[in-house]
């Protein structure tokens, strides 16, 4: 088997890491939380970084009228199926097809990734901005608009007494490395074809 095919197969298989490791993590730091509160986002669930963290995030957030973090969202059904199909597809073309297909797979996966991030942003926006009108505490921005509590999509941000951190986790890194391998497989395959 050619090197490019191996790269394509291995690259696709690395996406399976998403079924084991979290994709993303949001951590909230505050003086009263020497051990910060955290939520790990998998492709199929929200999970506590430390036991009961999500319950405690919800308890904190209810003061400013934020919704509870839902037990599940529709994406948790769609993401695993999508990733599963892409892995199978990637392995299949790794065995049967040439480098042009590899690039095609990479582009498709990139588009799906961007769609996924955008979807995540929309959820975050809604989570941070749809507030209970009877909220215990109401905050406004300097311009008079209602203050939102949306965590950052990527990076760190101060929200009232909390500093929120939002960063990719092992699952995302494996996906990133996997995609880079498939991208590389295109060039390697092209070279081999010459």
């Amino acid at each position, binding site marked *: 088997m050619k090197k490019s095919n191996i790269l394509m197969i291995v690259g696709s298989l690395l996406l399976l890491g998403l079924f084991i490791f979290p994709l993303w993590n949001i951590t909230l730091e505050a003086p009263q939380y020497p051990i910060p509160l955290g939520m790990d986002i998998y492709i199929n669930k929200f999970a506590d970084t430390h036991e*009961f963290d999500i*319950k*405690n995030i*919800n*308890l904190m957030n209810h*003061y400013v009228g934020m919704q*509870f973090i839902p037990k599940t969202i529709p994406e948790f059904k769609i993401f695993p199926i999508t990733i599963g199909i892409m892995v199978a597809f990637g392995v299949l073309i790794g065995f049967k097809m040439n480098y042009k297909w590899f690039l095609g797979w990479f582009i498709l996966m990139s588009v799906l990734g961007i769609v996924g991030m955008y979807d995540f942003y929309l959820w975050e926006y809604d989570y941070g901005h749809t507030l209970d009108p009877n909220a215990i505490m109401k905050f406004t921005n300097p311009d008079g608009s209602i203050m939102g509590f949306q965590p950052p999509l990527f990076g760190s941000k101060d929200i009232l007494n909390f500093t929120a951190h939002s960063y990719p986790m092992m699952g995302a890194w494996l996906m990133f490395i996997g995609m880079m391998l498939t991208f590389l497989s295109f060039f390697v395959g092209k070279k081999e074809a010459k």
Partner: protein
Amino acid sequence: MNTYIKSLFLFVITTFFLISCGPPTSKKNSNSKGAIAGNAAEKVYVAPGDHDSHYAFISGGFSGQLAVYGLPSGRLFRVIPVFSQDPEKGYGYSEETKPMLMTSHGFVPWGDSHHPDISQTQGSVDGRWVFINENNTPRIARISLKTFETEEIIEIPNSAGNHSSSFVTENSEYVVAGTRFSVPFPQRDMSIKDMKGNFSGALSFLKINQETGRMNIDFQIKMPGFNYDLSHPGRGKSHGWFFFSTYNTEEANSLMEVNASQNDKDFIAAINWKKIAEYVKNGGGKKVPARYTHNVWNDDTHNATSTMEKEVLVVEPKDVPGAIFFLPTAKSPHGCDVDPTGEYIIGNGKLAAQMTIHSFTKMLKAIEDKAFDGDAYGIPIIKFDAVNYGTLDQPGLGPLHTEFDTRGNAYTTFFISSEVVKWNVKDLKVIDRHKVYYSVGHLMIPGGNSRTPDDKYLVAMNKITKDRYLPTGPEVCQSAQLFDISGEKMELLLDFPTIGEPHYAAGIAADKIAPKTTKIYKLEDNKHPYGVKSEAETKVVRKGKEVHIYMTMIRSHFSPDNIEGVKVGDKVFFHVTNLEQDYDVPHGISMIGAQTSELLIMPGRTTTFTWEPKNVGVWPFYCTDFCSALHQEMQGYVRVSPSNSNIKISYTLDGDIPGEDDL
């Protein structure tokens, strides 16, 4: 004239003598300056947010409790309620904890706690449990060092003044309880003056279950009617033996300060408990009727149960020959201490000007050679010279207790001369002495009662403080004093006040306990019969004159928080569950006019208090522990109607019956 000059001279001499003998203030001041010069402040400074290196569990004495301090800072972290009611925590007031204070005499709200001792594995303190004895109504308690809560209290029958307790053997096989006051055994109506020969002293060996820590009295040795004052286990080579100091071998029953101080020598009783345990295991001993309570806390149901035990296994010394011996020891020894090697058994002869040091090796030889000097009630008395390693003469006045380092040194407290003296056990030579302020009782080196003392610090526990702190009226604090003993000379580092009277203490390196401590109780594991897991399950139920409120608390409201249908003459049970699952988020609850106490409820725990409303009206209850920014809003109302009212029970939260809630 001549007489006048003579007496003036005498007066001057006497004054000089008194000044030089007393604890003069100038000396004290120079001492504290010396401490600063020696960087004592740095040695005890634990920066904000940093942790101490050691836990010290210091007996709360007549408070009945056990206090937890950090060393070297001397900061008080927690007072664990053990033998006395504690309205701050609801201990002994809540329905769940009341059984912990049940005894064969009924509910006893107070106790006199004395000698904490930490469980051991292979001769080292292991941080599983700490045991402590109650002197007045004889009991032994076991406290979990995961939750820092009292988990078990067992009463000791046939005993009184439970003082030579609660010391553990080197693998925590047994925790031992000995009686200070001998009494009729079993108790009976008889003339006090017939005491001699008719009273007995019970030495009780409580077996410890290694998994659960549960104690039960394996056997009681029915000893002669002396006073068994203190005890310590053998260790290393002497593991399997236990040593008890005795006084009042005169068996006096009145004006004891004189009549119990006539014999020049009393005894240390040496007990081969392994031999007796073997004897008992093979069916030895006799089960006799007894009444004593065994109170056990259950962390799953959040409830204590009190069981009345009906019998105890008694062993007569004459039935196990070769297991019990008396070692003659200088006058009315108080502390009975065993060095880390297990070779030296030290009697602190509180009324003698000497320390008696016995040798375990010599003791075994003497027993083999039958080097006896008669017997007392059939128990052989070993010849003094045959067992004695040596004496430390004139080390100070009123020796009480001794602890050890790993370098062959002993540290003894002297009550009357108010000092700690460091001496070498083998050489019998005094190395250093240091004044303490004032009248020191016990001392503690972390891991002191073990083969492996952690010998950087020494804590001296003083009975009186006089002028050492800002005055607070006639009643002033008792105190502990921390010494650095890592060098040749003892260095006084710190004074810190203690609760109650600090008798013994037990110390241990923090890393043996801190990482394993419980942070919250898990709601899912809560099996309290009146516990609920969500607001949807909260309710109020009438059962005749009893009203049971199944209530929850979470930041920052109660559910339900409006209750109607309670009547004058009802007994209202507030069964309150803290739904929080976050570290250090307790809530409290108190009800106007309740004749119990507030409750302080940890996350995931259910606790109950009762309220018997006497007056018609609308009565508020509220959270007593500042739990959040909305703490002041954490309150509710109960409507109390006349006893003949026909208002039905109803309960709401925000106008509705409490419903499904995601929390």
